[in-house]
């Protein structure tokens, strides 16, 4: 029982981080109707930024968030003005190939600069510490901090979108760009801002997980694929949808671990042969397919 509860907690915690990853993707999609295949690469860059800044300064990577956020924000804006803006004039397939190309470019650039080996960080103040909630439920401090700060970043972006003038203008641009221009909203700048927020939230998420996730130039794809599933589950362009779907996906990735634990504990031989943890990301997509069948707009469908 305690193992089940621990798995649920772990799932919710990682789900909060995944929700932050998906947030950037859903905002970029919502504002511009473009799918950013390079989203996970932004996260990878955030991981390297957190790791290198932490190593250079000796502080905990959690304190490198402002640096990672600034790098991601700038990177998003540079990508928009330097590249995406031009691809948007082409057909849909050019946009798909364009962001796919951006993914390959950033990944290989990272390979060139950082090399292919896994790197990780062990000097963080929270590394190795954990909280016991009683009944044998243990929560690693690094994951708790990552989850808490993810929620804080998520709420900050949500407030920006819903409580500020620039956020409302961003929403208006998402809903009807031409209508927004007729209100005097500079939609081009709003697109760039969406890329800035998208990039910044991905790199912040990256810096948050570097305490317990090793980084290499190829780590991005997994997160891109998970973020796609979350955005589709939550409803394309929906911010609350991204949050709840993030939690759902987080839970789905932890349940196979519980399954394996049970099969080892009770020695179900046929189950022990196939450890479910190895396939945990498959279940994310199984859930995705099931929800698409019954509710194609996603849980909180907003855009068709």
């Amino acid at each position: 029982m305690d193992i089940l509860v621990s798995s649920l907690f772990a799932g919710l915690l990682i789900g909060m981080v995944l929700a932050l990853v998906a947030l950037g993707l859903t905002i970029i999609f919502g504002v511009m109707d473009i799918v950013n295949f390079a989203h996970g690469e932004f996260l990878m860059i955030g991981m390297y930024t957190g790791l290198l800044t932490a190593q250079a300064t000796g502080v905990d990577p959690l304190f490198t968030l402002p640096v990672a956020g600034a790098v991601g924000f700038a990177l998003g804006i540079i990508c928009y003005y330097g590249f995406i803006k031009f691809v948007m004039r082409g057909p849909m397939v050019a946009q798909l190939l364009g962001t796919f190309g951006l993914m390959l470019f950033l990944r290989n650039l990272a390979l060139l600069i950082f090399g292919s080996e896994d790197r990780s960080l062990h000097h963080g103040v929270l590394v190795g510490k954990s909280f016991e909630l009683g009944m044998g439920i243990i929560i690693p401090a690094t994951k708790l901090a990552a989850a808490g700060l993810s929620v804080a970043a998520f709420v900050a972006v949500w407030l920006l979108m819903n409580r500020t003038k620039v956020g409302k203008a961003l929403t208006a641009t998402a809903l009807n760009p031409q209508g927004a221009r007729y209100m005097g909203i500079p939609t081009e700048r709003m697109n760039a801002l969406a890329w800035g927020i998208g990039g910044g939230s991905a790199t912040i998420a990256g810096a948050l997980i570097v305490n317990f996730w090793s980084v290499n130039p190829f780590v991005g794809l997994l997160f891109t694929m998970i973020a796609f599933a979350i955005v589709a589950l939550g409803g394309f362009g929906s911010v609350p949808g991204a949050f709840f779907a993030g939690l759902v996906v987080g839970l789905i990735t932890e349940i196979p671990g519980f399954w394996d634990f049970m099969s080892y504990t009770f020695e179900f031989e046929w189950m022990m042969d196939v450890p479910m943890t190895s396939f945990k990301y498959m279940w994310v997509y199984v859930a995705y397919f099931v929800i698409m069948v019954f509710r194609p707009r996603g849980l909180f469908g907003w855009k068709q």
Partner: protein
Amino acid sequence: MGENILQLEAIKVRYSGLPVLHDISLHVDSGETVCVVGSNGAGKSTLLRAIMGTQRVFEGRVVFQGEEIQRLRTEAVVSKGIIYVPEEKMLFQPISVEENLRLGAYVLHDRGTIEKNLRFVYTLFPRLQERRFQAASTLSGGEQQMVAIGRGLMSNPTILMLDEPSLGLAPILVDEVLDTVRRLKAEGMTILLVEQNVREALDLADRGYVLQTGKIVAEGTGQELLKSDMFRSAFLGI
């Protein structure tokens, strides 16, 4: 009638090389209601979009309060004080009526003015006040048109350009919309109106222009146009 506010000087517009507007010249003075009439495809909407900078002006000048604006981006044109209420309304469908209206005041910064304009829009359209927390998509066609016009009024426009505000509305609502235009006119608003209800539009306008296949073929006061032979043959088939 006051000084000249908006002036088009021999503007030409093309769609992929094909000319759609030839040498259009017209002017709107302060406090005036000017109506542009013409059949489908005559280029009325194109004319307004050219003023807004959404449609490229190939030749000629658009002068607004003494300043050339034909090369400005749409959002810059709006911040000068020209508001365009498009035929398609272009509301922000899933968000509330009030949020739609407030977005109309994007170019304003003073909260007091925004609240004052909001109260003005609600006195003009009491029905919008009743529905202010409803999503724009849940409103009827007539009410959506009210939101579109109200949203345009939120920024204190120097000139309000209405593109077929009565399009697709039931006859009783058409009268309501045109009454609104009449009230705005009485308030001293400068209005450039494109309408398909030719008689009523010319009846309420101070002056009118007749647009036919991209050319202005007649101009004059509303009454003059309604009586002119050119106009009668073009629209009424007499």
